[in-house]
């Protein structure tokens, strides 16, 4: 039987230059339920599809608030995500304590990237089995970052990770030019539409399985500089899901005419 000798630890390259343990960790991300993130000029939106292990159990949390200016959406091993989110909470609190400022997004993403990378270079360690979308605002405006178990981080204008996320990415790529100038509420609807694309035939978005997180710059004349992170779950998602439904019935005519064009 074929035996792969190069996947026993995360520190050995295969002759093809691959590190299998890291690639397996990336597979764990693909097993997780999907999360979508996107930004416009003022806001960052994270949406996630929650799963419950069994009918009687609660749903696994997909979006974790790190601080009032940022949050993460997770796909993969939730317990690994908890380790990372605890670390991020500490760093964020540390920045507020020592400098009196919310930690810049690129700084904290760099820190978790470094942590994840060391796990791929030390014998006896394993990579994190989780992918993150880090969304938030800092002095330079709203940001979205993707984090992978390899330690790779990218700043994105829109991104989706997790099971069947390709469908969401396709939606995001097709509509990318609409995001930048759309409103906060439209951005949420775009996020939910991308999320809906990933659903299999028999599934739909409900108040139970949908999670939406929004953070952004404060509107003109509003108190404070930022609109603090707000997580919508359960009944609070009703208006958002209604807006999604409306946009789809409005978009249906649009879709047909596009088909005629092609």
């Amino acid at each position, binding site marked *: 039987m074929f035996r792969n000798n190069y996947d026993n630890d995360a520190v050995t390259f295969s002759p093809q230059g691959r590190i299998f343990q890291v690639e397996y960790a990336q597979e764990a991300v693909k097993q997780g339920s999907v999360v979508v993130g996107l930004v416009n000029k003022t806001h960052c939106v994270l949406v996630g599809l929650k799963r419950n292990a069994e009918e009687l159990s609660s749903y696994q949390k997909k979006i974790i608030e790190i601080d009032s200016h940022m949050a993460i959406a997770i796909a993969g091993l939730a317990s690994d995500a908890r380790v990372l989110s605890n670390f991020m909470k500490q760093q964020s609190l540390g920045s507020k304590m020592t400098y009196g*400022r919310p930690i*810049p997004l*690129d700084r904290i993403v760099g820190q978790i990237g470094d942590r994840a990378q060391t796990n791929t270079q030390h014998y006896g360690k394993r990579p994190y089995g989780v992918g993150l979308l880090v969304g938030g605002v800092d002095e*330079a405006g709203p940001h979205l970052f993707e984090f992978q178990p390899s330690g790779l981080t990218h700043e994105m204008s829109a991104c989706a990770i997790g099971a069947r996320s390709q469908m969401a990415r396709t939606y995001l790529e097709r509509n990318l030019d609409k995001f930048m100038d759309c409103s906060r509420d439209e951005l949420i609807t775009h996020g939910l539409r991308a999320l809906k694309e990933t659903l299999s035939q028999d599934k739909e978005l409900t108040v139970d399985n949908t999670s939406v997180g929004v953070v952004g710059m404060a509107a003109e004349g509003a108190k404070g*500089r930022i609109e603090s992170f707000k997580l919508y779950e359960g009944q609070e998602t009703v208006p958002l899901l209604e807006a999604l439904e409306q946009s789809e019935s409005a978009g249906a005519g649009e879709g047909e005419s596009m088909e005629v064009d092609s």
Partner: protein
Amino acid sequence: MDHFPGTWGRPRNDVYGAYDPTYLQTTGPKTHTSSPAVTGTSVIGVKFNGGVVLATDNLASYGSLARFTDVKRLRVFGDNAVVGFGGDVSDMQYIDRLLESIDIRENYSTHGNMLNAKNLHTYLAKVFYKRRSEFNPLWNHVLVAGFDVDGKPFLSSADLLGTTFSAPHLATGFGAHLAVPILRRRFPEEMPIEEITREEAVSALKDCLKVLFYRDARSIDKYSIAVITKEGIDLKEDEQIEGQSWAFAERIRGYGRQTN
């Protein structure tokens, strides 16, 4: 001479008695950190409409000796923050290295150094407080000038104990006694800083520096002055106190060579 080289050249026990080791303090706390050595005197600062101005003289004293007469005690940080140092000069240089490393670290971030004067002041106050809690204080009193997160002029002080204090005009050291009353008279409490022009603020500081040079024996008539505005920092480090008048010195009695 005996066969024990370790005792050669030492006072002999049979002649002078055994050495009394209590003269050598080998235990007890470290004390050399509990007083400054080479010191800078006052730092003074005033907020005005659209910015802050900060000034120090260029002297570092060794006790009462005017030891170094060309020491720059204003330190620029980032695009629009300045720290003015009073107190121990070697501790100032240590903090300067801390700030340098923060500046470098910050500049690696995508958007450059985004720490403003307020962030810097918070940080310095924490450093001072940590060090005093270790009984190893950084012997300084600093003023931090610049802008806060909303772009409003910012001026605040932090001292060796980690105490912070903020006001429209501030001074450390001897200046806290001599300059602050002058500044208070010039810019009363009820006067909003929007009514203070840059020129008024600068000339007030120059007058304060002159009074300090007259009356503070640890001062010198060469000074540095930094004007921080949104446009940037105008730092002059080689200025001379103008318009001195020592006529009053003739009438001083009570010390010196005269006897009557």
